C-alpha cells in the first residue's frame, strides 16, 4: 500500500481507488465518497480513507477534482441571460466555495423569489448582463434560485443606456458615464462602491 502524508489529522493515509473494499458495514457506516453493497463499504472515488472512530463512519477524502453540480442551499454566482415578465434566467458560472464550474448550468428566478419586498416585474430588480449572487432552491436543473436571502442580489450591474458598470452611492446605482440612476435588487456585496 502506498503511503502519503495525510490531508486530515485522522486520515489513515491509505489511498484507495473506486471499487476498493474499505470495511464491512458492521465496522463503519458508508459516508462521503463511499457506498454500500452486499454489506461491504467500498470507495466510489480516488482518495485517502478516513475511518472515523467517533461517529463510526468511513469517508474517502480528496482535495482535487470532484464532480460538482449545484445543490439546495448552495450560493452561486451567475449572469442574467434573459429577463421575462415573471422570471429571469441565469447562467450559473460558479458555486461559491467550489472551484469555478468547467461548464455552466441554467437557473431561473421567479419574481416572487427576488425580494422580501413587493416587486411588480423582474425588470425592476435585474437587467440583462447583471452579475448576481443567489441561493439555490432545487438540487437539479432547471435550478430555482432566490435572492431573498441576506448577501444575495446583484453584485455588478451595467448601465442600460451605455453598458458601463454602475457605481453604488447612498443605496443608488449611478452611471459615471451618462449620470443615469438605476434600480436593482442590490446585494450588500456589490463590488463597485463610491
Amino acid at each position, binding site marked *: 500500500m*502506498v503511503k502519503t502524508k495525510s490531508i486530515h489529522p485522522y486520515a489513515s493515509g491509505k489511498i484507495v481507488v473506486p471499487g476498493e473494499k474499505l470495511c464491512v458495514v458492521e465496522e463503519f457506516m458508508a459516508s462521503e465518497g463511499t457506498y454500500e453493497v452486499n454489506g461491504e463499504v467500498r470507495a466510489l472515488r480516488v482518495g485517502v480513507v478516513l475511518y472515523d472512530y467517533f461517529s463510526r463512519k468511513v469517508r474517502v477524502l480528496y*482535495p482535487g*477534482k470532484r464532480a460538482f453540480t449545484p445543490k439546495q442551499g448552495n450560493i452561486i454566482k451567475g449572469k442574467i441571460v434573459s429577463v421575462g415578465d415573471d422570471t429571469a434566467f441565469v447562467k450559473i458560472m460558479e458555486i461559491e466555495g467550489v472551484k469555478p464550474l468547467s*461548464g455552466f448550468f441554467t437557473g431561473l428566478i421567479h419574481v416572487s423569489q427576488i425580494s422580501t419586498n413587493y416587486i411588480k416585474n423582474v425588470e425592476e430588480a435585474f437587467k440583462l448582463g447583471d452579475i448576481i449572487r443567489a441561493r439555490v432552491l432545487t438540487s437539479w436543473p432547471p435550478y430555482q434560485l432566490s435572492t431573498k436571502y441576506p448577501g444575495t442580489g446583484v453584485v455588478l450591474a451595467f448601465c442600460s443606456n451605455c453598458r458601463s458598470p454602475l457605481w453604488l452611492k447612498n443605496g443608488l446605482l449611478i452611471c459615471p458615464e451618462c449620470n443615469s440612476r438605476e434600480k436593482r435588487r442590490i446585494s450588500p456585496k456589490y463590488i463597485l462602491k463610491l
Partner: protein
Amino acid sequence: MSSEDKIVLIDEKGRRIDGRGPEDLRPIRMEIDVLKNADGSAYVEQGGTKVIAAVYGPREVHPRHLAFPDRAAIRCRYHMAPFSTSERKSPAPSRREIELSKVIREALESVVFTQLYPRTVIDIFIEVLQADGGTRCAGLTAASLALADAGIPIRDLIAAVAVGKIDGVLVLDINETEDEHCEADMPMAMAPSFNEIVLLQLNGVLSPEETSKAIELGKKGIMKIYELQKETLKKKYELSTRRSQVVT
C-alpha cells in the same frame, strides 16, 4: 487459404508474431489528467494502440429532451482519427464506430452512479490516435480512468482486453495482424472488484469449452491491467496532494 501465403502467427516455439507468448500482454502505458479543458482525461497505450479519453460533466443537457428526470444521461463517442489506420479512415462516424460507442456506453453505465446527478449528462469522448487491435478495450480502460480522474462517483473501474484464437491457440491481447488472420476475436471488459463482465463480444467461432477458457484467460489479463490502473491513479493522487501541500 493456401498454406504458402499464410502468415506464421505462432512459430514452433509458441512465440507470436511480435515475440510474445500466448498469455502475454503488450507493454502498457497509462497516464491520467492529460488534457486541460476536460474534467477528466486519460491516455492509454497498449503496444501500437494509442487511445485518449476525455470526460466532461455532469453538465447541462442540450438538447433538453435527452435528459432523464431521475439520473444522468451518458453520451459516449468512440472515434478513430483519420490518421489512426494504415489507410486513411474517413472521419465521419462509421457503422462500426456507432456500434462501439453504444457498447462502451452500456459498459460504463453499469458502473457510474448516474442517479446522483439527475437531469444532467456525462459526455465521454474516446479518440483512437493509433489503431493496432484492441482499440475498444484500450478505449474502455482509458474512459474508466478518465471518469475516476474527473471525480465522478463510480462503482468500480473497468479494465478490458481482447482474447483471440490463432491457429487453434487461445491468445491474450491480440494486435492488428493477429486480428486480421485470427479464427476468433473476443473483446471483454470487467468490473474487477466484482468479478463482473460488463462487455463481451465475439467475432468468429469458439466452442463452449474454448469460450470459458478464453474468459478465464481474459480475466487474467484484465487483472494485470487493473493493477496498472490502480497504480496510475494512486501515483497521480500522491502528486496532487504533494502539490496542494506546497500551495497551502
